[in-house]
């Protein structure tokens, strides 16, 4: 399994040390291998694409002229053997050079850098929505097991995972923006306002740092609809996992003992049950974050949110190869990084976690 590959790479430096240290080394080894895998995947994927990048860049007229085409292929290194192309690509990536977008003629790394904070802000807000609702509902359902409350919560969470995200986004947009006009429905800030000075790139945080309250409220109100939609999208998933995690803990002897010795229900829940359910819940939060990254494409398109999702959609539909590779690489890395963090937390919280 995953562990086998890297025990060989990892036992050398970590060999026999503290179990946690060894665990970290092994996990880090796996992560690095996966990251290389991601660069290889994006590279292979873009080379398998049947569409001709030359024509996409040069336009039909220039692509009809063999001299121009040959010059372009020469300059872009398209005639080199594939392994050479891959190593050129890899060394560029390691230097932070993701190539130049064929559409905008801007460095892809810069464009992604500009788009990333928008997505981060949206995803963070969404994860807060779904963590609070999901863990809360899951805990409630578990504590009220086999009552009508449990049934209703279960049904609601099933409905939640069955609604097509793009449709939910449209319904929310239609009701709260188009019909009621309570919240703004597109963009990150009203066009009349100037974005706050760039510190973190998150408009809500930056406007607070600059002490610009009107901008803060405006940014926050723009965040409400897309973040709620994106958050609701994972609530169903989280509720289920939280419920089953809590149920498993409720059956443990130490919980029964705590109850038996007469601790108040509130103490049992907060001290024993919630703490015990933390590991599976953290895992699921990591997973939920991953599915948020998928969901963000659809939500960003509908709410005109200038983030990675919209960027990747534009790149994919225009066959902008460097941009597609950049998105694949960055998103893949974020995904893997998240899994690594989840693994770390796992190891920290639950000492039983060992690398077999």
């Amino acid at each position, binding site marked *: 399994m995953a562990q086998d590959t890297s025990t060989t790479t990892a036992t050398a430096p970590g060999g026999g040390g503290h179990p946690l240290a060894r665990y970290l080394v092994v996990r880090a080894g796996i992560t690095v291998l996966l990251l290389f895998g991601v660069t290889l995947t994006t590279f292979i994927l873009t080379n398998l694409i049947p569409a001709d990048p030359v024509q996409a860049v040069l336009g039909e007229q220039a692509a009809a002229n063999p001299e121009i085409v040959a010059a372009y292929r020469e300059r872009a290194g398209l005639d080199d053997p594939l392994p050479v192309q891959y190593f050129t690509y890899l060394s560029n990536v390691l230097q932070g050079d993701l190539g130049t977008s064929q559409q905008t003629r801007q460095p892809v790394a810069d464009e992604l850098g500009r788009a990333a904070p928008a997505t981060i802000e949206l995803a963070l807000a969404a994860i807060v929505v779904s963590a609070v609702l999901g863990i809360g509902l899951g805990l409630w359902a578990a504590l009220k097991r086999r009552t009508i409350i449990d049934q209703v919560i279960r049904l609601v969470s099933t409905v939640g995972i069955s609604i097509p995200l793009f449709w939910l986004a449209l319904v929310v947009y239609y009701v709260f923006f188009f019909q009621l006009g309570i919240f703004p429905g597109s963009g990150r800030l009203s066009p009349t306002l100037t974005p706050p000075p760039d510190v973190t790139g998150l408009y809500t945080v930056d406007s607070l740092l600059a002490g610009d309250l009107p901008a803060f409220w405006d940014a926050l109100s723009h965040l409400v609809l897309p973040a709620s939609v994106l958050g609701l999208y994972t609530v169903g998933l989280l509720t289920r996992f939280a419920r089953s995690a809590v149920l498993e803990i409720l059956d443990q002897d130490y919980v029964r003992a705590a109850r038996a010795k007469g601790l108040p229900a509130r103490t049992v829940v907060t001290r024993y049950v919630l703490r015990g359910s933390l590991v599976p819940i953290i895992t699921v939060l990591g997973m939920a974050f991953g599915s948020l990254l998928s969901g963000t*494409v659809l939500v960003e398109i509908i709410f005109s949110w200038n983030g990675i999702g919209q960027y990747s959609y534009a790149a994919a539909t225009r066959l902008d190869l460097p941009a597609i590779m950049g998105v694949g690489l960055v998103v893949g890395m974020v995904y893997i990084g998240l899994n690594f963090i989840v693994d770390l937390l796992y190891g920290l919280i639950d000492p039983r976690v060992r690398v077999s």
Partner: protein
Amino acid sequence: MTTADGTPTPSAPPVMVPSTRRRRIPAALRSPLAIVALAIITIWVAVMILAPWISPAGPTEQSFERLTAPSAEHWFGTDQVGRDVFSRVLHGARMSIPVAALLVSASLVVGAVLGAIAGYFGRVVDEVIMRVADLVFAFPTIILAMVIAAALGPSLRNAVIAILVVSWPPYARVTRSLVLSAREAEYVVAGRLLGNGPFTSLTKDVMPNVAAPVVVLATLDIGTAILLLSGLSFLGLGAVPPTPEWGAMVSDGIQQFSSWWIAGFPGLAIMSIVLAFNMLGDVLRDSLDPHTAQTVKGRAL
């Protein structure tokens, strides 16, 4: 294909489930939730088969007044080119259900074969297959599917290929883990001692006992497949415009916001059938091994 893929769903589980659990499944299916779910699925399968005869108009027929609200004549209203939305929604079942069923069967076959090979033979084969699975897992589903679909060009077939590429790993993982434990079972070892080669051992002894839970769980993933497929079509990377596909119909409705019915009803159609599959899945998963169930469910969406 249409009926063969669509209809086994309600009747199949009792046949496919291992004998030890046979008694529990029908009991589970008698719960009110399961009955509602089965009813919805049955209705949609019937609609899928009967659409040409029961819909009031052709799916691409543009012979009505444009953008009329739902009425007795047009239950779901008409769209911007004067097509009857109700007829289009009915015909949409003919796209989504069989294609999703085909998609799930294909990813199941690919995943199960690869997972079985990985689990049975172990070592290098296992490493290679499972590392590739890890890599696919390393990308968010929609983004990877979107890139592949865009690269191949927008069409329903390419959307299916794209989703197939991203959706086999969960089946590979589950099958692999089941094969790993079945491989050491006494009857399998006995078979090997009696001279069964690896191929016979895997196909005759191991797989029949592994297949049941995987197949049942996969059937229920049809809901997820419908969601992904309609998502790609919504993005314009799946079914091409005049085709009555639910996701594409929702995207038609974006330009006509004051006519909520254009996007509203196809969305409800997607939701109802996905919900039915998910409810059924819930009930069945509870009666199957919980750990297997979670591994498959893990990557929902």
